[in-house]
């Protein structure tokens, strides 16, 4: 009885049979256990004594299942080919979950190092898919997948919030430019371009949407953003769930057809590009995929065709370029970003190895949503940190939102003195507008300062509770909010924050996460569960952006904002202003 397979294992075996095609079977039978893939993996390099990090060991987990069920020798003499060590219990599945999700970002670097051409990353994705099929996956993956299934985007952004953010960015553009010609048009039928974004942009970094809008307007593009099918990301790529992958991709394709656009432009997101442009077509069974391109290609063409003018001297810092694994290794997209970067900046220093051989930022494969593996992930990033450090760059440029988060985490964790930017930031900053298009005021394109609210004490009459255990941070935040006209009260820990929120009923709480005593996460949950405070908006301001999933996993409404330290003053005020206004609009 002890050796009997559980129902879940049997379901996985059935599911495996459905995932087998010639390429997959080739990779399953082709491995000779030569160990040549070993040092291609950033996990191996970070944990040289833990041999279970080696790619072939990870791939063997699904290989054993295959051999035990489909291979001649493995079916008759399983012990001879290692097929006797197949998972039998649900506890075994937890171990497999840790291997497939926690020790591999599916970056595909090992695939390129295999003499036999075994696609180990694909095998790991299959294992993820088998586990997801029986409900065994990290909580973060479960939550994100659920959001993508139910709400059509992986961060659970509500339609009203999405549209509100687009409106907010349009208003800012109008304030910057002095006219509303650059406003973001939603659902414009017959536009040439449908622009789709990563929900991270809507939720954490709307500046990139504003910058893209500015560039589209400057290029005279006929473009639009959809109300549905706007999420270019696809968690099916990470969870291994081809069903989710197909449904999510199809939403986008169908919307583009409905709007009658000529092409889909995908914002700078590695996994978004790969899943929408490449894999989604196969998952969704698209017969004739419509034209799709990365926004990097779009911007590059604008510059090359003279549709926009750029001044590279506006980006004089020493920069290096980090290749997203999905872009470079799985989509061959590595020269164009460099070409554009050279056109809009002054000093590019390559890191080595690069392009298709570049190392993962550690944020790939959905790793950012699996907080339980964060310490291991950060440690595995040492090779990437060493690469960046060797360039002496002040700015790491990348064309991927996961990479932005992954690299930012590494920069903070290892104390690197540099920042991460995307090409859209640099192009917007380098943009030279024609006389006719120049803003009436002195506001600079790409400048995210909220000029209107800054000039009018945007937070006048507001009461803000600043919660942080570090005195200098409290002082900084207090000064910024007070300069913007707010009345500020402060708390040093979670307990004090909850009691002060009850007593003072602030318009906004700025909440740190990592604090002694009751930490920010516990305090946040209590605030949300307490009737007197549940409606008070919360903006998390933390030095540990990698904890974001911890808070988003709580069974309460998510925070209204989330900013990483060091926080930009203008951005902080803009967020606070926006959050409070949005809350009031909702209340009314």
């Amino acid at each position, binding site marked *: 009885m002890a050796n009997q397979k559980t129902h879940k294992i049997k379901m996985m075996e059935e599911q495996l049979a459905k995932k087998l*095609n*010639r*390429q*997959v*079977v*080739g*990779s399953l*039978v*082709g*491995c*000779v*256990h*030569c*160990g*040549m*893939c*070993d*040092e*291609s993996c950033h996990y191996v390099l970070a944990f040289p004594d833990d*041999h279970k990090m*080696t790619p*072939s*060991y990870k791939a*063997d987990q699904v290989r054993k299942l295959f051999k035990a069920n489909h291979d*001649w*020798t493995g079916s008759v003499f399983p012990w*001879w*080919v*290692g097929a006797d060590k197949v998972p039998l219990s649900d506890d075994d599945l937890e171990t497999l979950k840790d291997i497939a999700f926690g020790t591999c970002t599916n970056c595909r670097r090992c695939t*390129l*190092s*295999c*003499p*036999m*051409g*075994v*696609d180990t990353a694909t095998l790991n994705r299959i294992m993820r898919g088998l586990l997801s099929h029986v409900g065994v996956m990290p909580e973060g993956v479960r939550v994100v997948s659920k959001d993508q299934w139910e709400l059509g985007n992986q961060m659970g952004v509500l339609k009203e919030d999405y549209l509100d953010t687009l409106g907010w960015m349009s208003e800012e553009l109008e304030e910057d430019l002095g006219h509303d010609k650059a406003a973001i048009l939603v659902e414009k039928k017959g536009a040439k371009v449908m622009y789709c974004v990563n929900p991270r942009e809507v939720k954490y970094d709307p500046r990139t949407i504003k910058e893209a809008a500015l560039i589209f307007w400057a290029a005279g593009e006929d473009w639009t953003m959809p109300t549905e099918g706007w999420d270019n990301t696809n968690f099916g790529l990470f969870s291994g769930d081809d069903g989710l992958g197909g449904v999510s991709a199809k939403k986008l394709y169908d919307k583009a057809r409905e709007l009658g656009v000529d092409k889909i432009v995908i914002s700078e997101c590695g996994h978004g590009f790969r899943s929408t*442009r*490449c894999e989604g*077509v*196969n998952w969704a*069974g*698209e017969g004739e*995929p419509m*034209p*799709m391109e990365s926004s990097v290609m779009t911007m590059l063409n604008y510059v090359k065709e003279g549709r926009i003018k750029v001044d590279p001297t506006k980006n004089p810092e020493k920069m290096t370029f980090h290749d997203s694994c999905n872009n*470079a290794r*799985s*989509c*061959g*997209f*590595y*020269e*164009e970003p*460099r070409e554009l970067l050279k056109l809009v900046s002054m000093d590019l220093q*390559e890191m080595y190895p*690069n*392009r*298709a*051989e570049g190392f993962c930022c550690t944020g790939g494969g959905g790793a950012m949503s699996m907080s339980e593996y964060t310490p291991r992930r950060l440690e595995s990033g040492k090779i990437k940190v060493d690469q960046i450090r060797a360039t002496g760059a002040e700015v790491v440029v990348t064309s991927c939102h996961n990479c932005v988060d992954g690299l930012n985490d590494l920069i903070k964790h290892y104390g690197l003195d540099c920042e991460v930017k995307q090409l859209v930031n640099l192009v917007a900053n380098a943009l030279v507008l024609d006389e006719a298009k120049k803003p009436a005021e002195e506001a600079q394109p790409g400048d995210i300062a909220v000029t209107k609210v800054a000039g009018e004490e945007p937070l006048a009459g507001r009461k803000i509770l600043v919660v942080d255990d570090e005195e200098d941070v409290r002082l900084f935040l207090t000064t910024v909010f007070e300069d913007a006209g707010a009345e500020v009260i402060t708390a040093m820990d979670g307990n004090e924050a909850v009691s002060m929120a009850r007593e003072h009923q602030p318009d906004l709480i700025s909440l740190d996460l990592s604090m002694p005593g009751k930490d920010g996460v516990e305090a946040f949950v209590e605030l949300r569960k307490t009737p007197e405070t549940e409606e008070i908006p919360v903006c998390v301001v933390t030095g540990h952006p990698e904890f974001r999933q911890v808070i988003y996993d709580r069974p309460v409404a998510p925070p209204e904002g989330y900013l990483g330290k060091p926080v930009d003053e203008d951005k902080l005020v803009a967020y606070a202003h926006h959050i409070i206004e949005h809350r009031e609009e909702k209340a009314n």
Partner: protein
Amino acid sequence: MHEVSPALHTAEVVHWIALVVMAIVYTLRIRWLLSFNLGKDKSAPGNPTQSDKKRGVRYSLFNVAMPWSMESTRKPKGFVFYLSFVIFHLGVVAGITLAFVSTIAPDFLRFPAVGWTMMFFIVAAFLVSLYRIARRTLRPLMRLISTPDDYFSLIMLTVWFAIGAATQAHLMGIWGVTSDVVQIAYLYLTSFFLLYVPFSKISHYLYYPFTRTYIGRALGHRGSYPVSRG
């Protein structure tokens, strides 16, 4: 064709029968692989300026001869392993050649240039096999990923190389190897080898053209093959 003892004759017949069986089983193996659907990538070429399926396949198939094409064989440690890989597999080719040619044209193997060339590759492969046994048994990583089949296949080939070297010496009349027992043993071992291969990891060479073609076509289509470095 040539005069042999009854025992050696029997070994030769068994050897040829084993070859026929192996050919049948290999055919079945390939049929089995081809029974799975070929996954098709319906996406547009990943990068119009770089995408080329055929070029990707060519690059992928021939990267075995381009140690600079993969990081795993480009680095000094990897390059040493690559050299051992080359010698090992040339030794296998020499060993197979020895088995077949010795049954139909043994005199050819007695030409000094041919004989010593064969001997060089077989002995070199034998030495590499010893290194590989040490590598697989002494390195914890290799022990972790190795199966009984991995060990057995390697040990079997090592013994096969050793007896092959003795057989070649017998054919050349050197090193005092006068009995044809070694040649008989070599042919029986080769027969076993031929029968065992389709069921073991050694069949990887059967799959090699397929796996390399598939990955070459996939990455060639996407534009990341051939690998470009800056």
